[in-house]
C-alpha cells in the first residue's frame, strides 16, 4: 500500500525530515565575476578555458573543482556520499558523466535543461526523506562556449544578437544535501509538468519558459495553501528580463499579489553595462545564484523563507530545426533558513 504522507496536493512533496544544504561551492567565469553578484560566489575564474584544449574539458574541470571544494568545505570524502545526482546541457550530459567518473559515487544522471539543478536537489530531498540516503551530492556546470557550439553557432560567426537573447553562464556549483549541520533546509519540492504553449522563437527562451514557471508557482501555492507573501524572496532561475516580464503579466492576470518579491537569477547575474541581452541562462545560472546569492541571504538571516523556481527549455537543435515548438518545465523548491 503506497504511503502518501510525503505528498501534498497534485505535484508537491514535503520534506518533514528537513534535509539541509550541508556544504556547497560555487565557481563562475570572468563575465559573471564582473557582474553585480560577484562577491556572492566563492571562486571567480580569470580564464574560462582553465588552460584546457577544449571548452568541454574546461566545463568538466570546473564541475570537478566545484565538487572537490564542496566536499572539502563539509570535510567529506566521496565515500561519505550515497548518491551523486547531476546533469548539464551537453549532449548525453557528458560533463556530468565524465565528472562522475572521478567521483566514484553511484551516479544518477538527470536532464531538465536549465532546471536541472533544482531537479537534482529535489530528488536529493526525496532520497533523504525516504530514508534511501544520508548524504546526496548534487551538482551542475555550464559554459558559454560549449552551449554556443552545441545549440547555436560557431563563436566567431557574424550574428547580431537581439534583446531577448540570453547568455549561457559559465560556472559550476555543487552541494551536499543531508540531515547534518545548520544550513538552510528544503521543506517542499513542487515538480513541474512539461508545458508547451506553442512558442517557437529560440532567440526568446524567456517567453517560452514563463508559462511553465507560472504553472509550477500556481500549483505550488495551491498544494501548500501558501501565498506569494509567505515567502521573503521568490527567485526564478533564468527567465531573463523578457521572461520575467511575461511571468508577471501571467500572475497579474490571475490576481496574484506579492509580485514585488520576485527576482530572477538570469536577469541579475550580469549588469546592464555588460550588454548581455535578456540575461544569463545555462544550468549553472540558477545553481550559482541559489548556492551563492540566495544561500548567503538565508544564512545571514536577511531572509527566512525563499522559493526557488528553476525553468528549462526542453528543445534540441533537431527539434528546433524541424520546426517544433519549445516545451518547457519548471521545478520549485522551498527553502527555510
Amino acid at each position, binding site marked *: 500500500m503506497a504511503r502518501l504522507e510525503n505528498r501534498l496536493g497534485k505535484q508537491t512533496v514535503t520534506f518533514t525530515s528537513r534535509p539541509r544544504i550541508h556544504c556547497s561551492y560555487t565557481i563562475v567565469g570572468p563575465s559573471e565575476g564582473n557582474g553585480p553578484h560577484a562577491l556572492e560566489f566563492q571562486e571567480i575564474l580569470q580564464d574560462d578555458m582553465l588552460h584546457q584544449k577544449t571548452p568541454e574539458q574546461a566545463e568538466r574541470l570546473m564541475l570537478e573543482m566545484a565538487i572537490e571544494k564542496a566536499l572539502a568545505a563539509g570535510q567529506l570524502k566521496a565515500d561519505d556520499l550515497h548518491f551523486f545526482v547531476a546533469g548539464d546541457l551537453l549532449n548525453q550530459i557528458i560533463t556530468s558523466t565524465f565528472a562522475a567518473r572521478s567521483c566514484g559515487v553511484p551516479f544518477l544522471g538527470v536532464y531538465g535543461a536549465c532546471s536541472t539543478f533544482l531537479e537534482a536537489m529535489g530528488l536529493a530531498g526525496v532520497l533523504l526523506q525516504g530514508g534511501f540516503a544520508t548524504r546526496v551530492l548534487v551538482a551542475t556546470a555550464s559554459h558559454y562556449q560549449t552551449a554556443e557550439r552545441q545549440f547555436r553557432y560557431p*563563436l566567431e560567426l557574424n550574428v547580431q544578437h537581439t534583446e531577448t537573447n540570453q547568455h549561457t553562464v559559465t560556472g559550476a556549483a555543487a552541494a551536499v544535501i543531508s540531515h547534518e549541520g545548520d544550513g538552510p533546509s528544503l521543506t517542499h519540492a513542487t515538480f513541474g509538468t512539461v508545458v508547451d504553449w506553442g512558442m517557437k522563437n529560440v532567440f526568446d527562451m524567456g517567453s517560452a519558459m514563463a508559462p511553465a514557471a507560472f504553472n509550477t508557482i500556481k500549483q505550488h501555492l495551491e498544494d501548500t495553501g501558501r501565498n506569494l507573501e509567505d515567502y521573503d524572496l521568490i527567485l526564478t532561475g533564468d527567465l531573463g528580463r523578457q521572461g520575467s516580464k511575461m511571468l508577471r503579466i501571467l500572475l497579474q492576470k490571475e490576481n496574484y499579489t506579492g509580485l514585488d518579491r520576485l527576482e530572477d537569477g538570469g536577469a541579475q547575474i550580469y549588469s546592464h553595462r555588460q550588454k548581455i541581452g535578456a540575461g544569463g541562462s545555462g544550468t549553472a545560472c540558477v545553481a550559482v545564484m541559489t548556492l551563492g546569492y540566495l544561500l548567503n541571504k538565508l544564512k545571514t538571516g536577511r531572509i527566512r523563507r525563499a522559493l526557488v523556481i528553476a525553468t528549462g527549455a526542453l528543445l534540441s537543435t533537431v527539434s528546433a530545426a524541424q520546426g517544433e515548438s519549445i516545451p518547457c518545465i519548471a521545478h520549485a523548491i522551498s527553502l527555510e533558513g
Partner: protein
Amino acid sequence: MQYLIAFVTGGLICALAQIILDTTNLKAAHILVALVCLGALLNGVGLYEPFQKFAGAGALVPVLGFGSSITKGMLAEAERLGWEGLFTGAFEITGLGLAASVVFSSLTALLRQPKK
C-alpha cells in the same frame, strides 16, 4: 564617383536585408539564399551586367554577385564546351574565391583559436 555609387548601392542592399531581418521571421540564412538566387536570376535575364557596370563592387560584393557569377560562368562555358560547360562553368569565376576560402580558413584555424 564610382566609389560613392558602390558604397551607396551596396549599403542599400544591406539596409534592405536588415529591414527584412528585423521585421519578418526570416533568418539571415534565408535572406542570403534569396539574394544568391536573385543574383543568378538577374544575370540570366540580362539585368545584372548593366547593374554591375553601374554599381561596380556595390553589385559584385554582396552575395548577389556570387550568384550572378555562377550563372555567368555556366553560360560562358556552355557556349564554349556545350553541355559540360553548364556544369564546369559554376566555378569559373567563383572557384578562385571558394578554393581561397578553404585554404585561408584552414590556415586561420591552424593559427587562431576562437575567442568569446
